[in-house]
């Protein structure tokens, strides 16, 4: 997300507890990087949350994401706040409480289920065999 947004010319700041996580962004990444936890007000302030138009919490901890998103929304009044939540039940609860959420588990389950029933893989319109054939042709 950070790479795609920065690549599209947006000003991006990414927060992570581990410095090593920033390595994955690649050398072309032109956004800002802040080391720390995203539920800490002072870290968020240092990351410039007061000027942010959008805040997304996408760690692999549901509760951490929810807490960070609420801090962004309630305390810093960021206009657009999105949270990733793995647990579909938890997602439903917090949607009912007015949070914008994306549940990756439910999305993937829906895609898989769809493929099982319809035989169409919506995440890749082309069959895998086509991609494999193209790759081996290229290798030769």
């Amino acid at each position: 997300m950070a790479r795609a947004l920065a690549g599209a010319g947006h000003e991006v700041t990414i927060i992570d507890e581990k410095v090593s996580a920033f390595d994955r962004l690649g050398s072309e990444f032109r956004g800002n990087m802040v080391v720390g936890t995203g539920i800490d007000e002072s870290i968020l302030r240092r990351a410039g949350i007061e000027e942010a138009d959008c805040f997304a919490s996408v760690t692999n901890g549901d509760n951490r994401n929810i807490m960070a998103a609420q801090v962004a929304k309630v305390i810093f009044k960021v206009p657009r706040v999105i949270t990733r939540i793995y647990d579909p039940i938890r997602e439903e609860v917090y949607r009912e409480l007015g949070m914008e959420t994306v549940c990756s588990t439910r999305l993937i389950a829906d895609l898989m289920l769809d493929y099982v029933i319809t035989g169409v893989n919506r995440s890749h319109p082309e069959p895998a065999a086509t991609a494999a054939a193209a790759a081996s042709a290229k290798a030769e």
Partner: protein
Amino acid sequence: MALVERPYVLIIGGGKVGFYLAKHLIERDYEVTLVEKNPERAERIEHELGSVIVMIGDGDEMAFLATTGIERAGVVVACTGDDEDNLIACQLAKRKFNVPRTIARVNNPVNVHVFTALGIDAPISATELLMGLIEAELGGSEMVRGVAVKASGAALVDVALPDLSRLIGRKISDIKLPDDALIVCLVRKGQPVIPRPEEIVQAQDELIVYSKSLDVEDVRRSLSA
């Protein structure tokens, strides 16, 4: 004879805090259920406390919480070592199960303010309390302890005056406080004294101030040298 219902308290997290809290409440005849996700720890608590009901599960999971009788709890106390888990557990208790009062242990003191803003009735930071007590032992500056008065948004602030306080020798009526604060008691040598306007403040007095706002700092500032 009318049956008085025992208050039901749901404790989430069976670490040291949760364990001793459960023990203490049972001794005072509360009905207690303790939620702990680690099965071994849960078993140990059950073995030691006997009369407490220990449930193994995640205190921040809706389906599990629904099996704990949470909807009839008067109070939910979330005291795990993770602030985000305590926050979510209390929010679910309050908003989904209509629990009247939620108390959360706050591990990182900077989160006290966040918890209050996000609707937790009583965020409690052991670190902050400890710092206040240690500061008092160090002497020098005035010691301040604030106690929130239930959910009213008011506070009782206990200020122990330092030896060099400029307030010593002054009349109570001459002490300037924020508009929404009032000195309600004076503690002198361990005894309560009614703070009449003409009472003169002495060294080592403690002032107990009632403040309509929770801004303990504000009260402290107005009383410091």
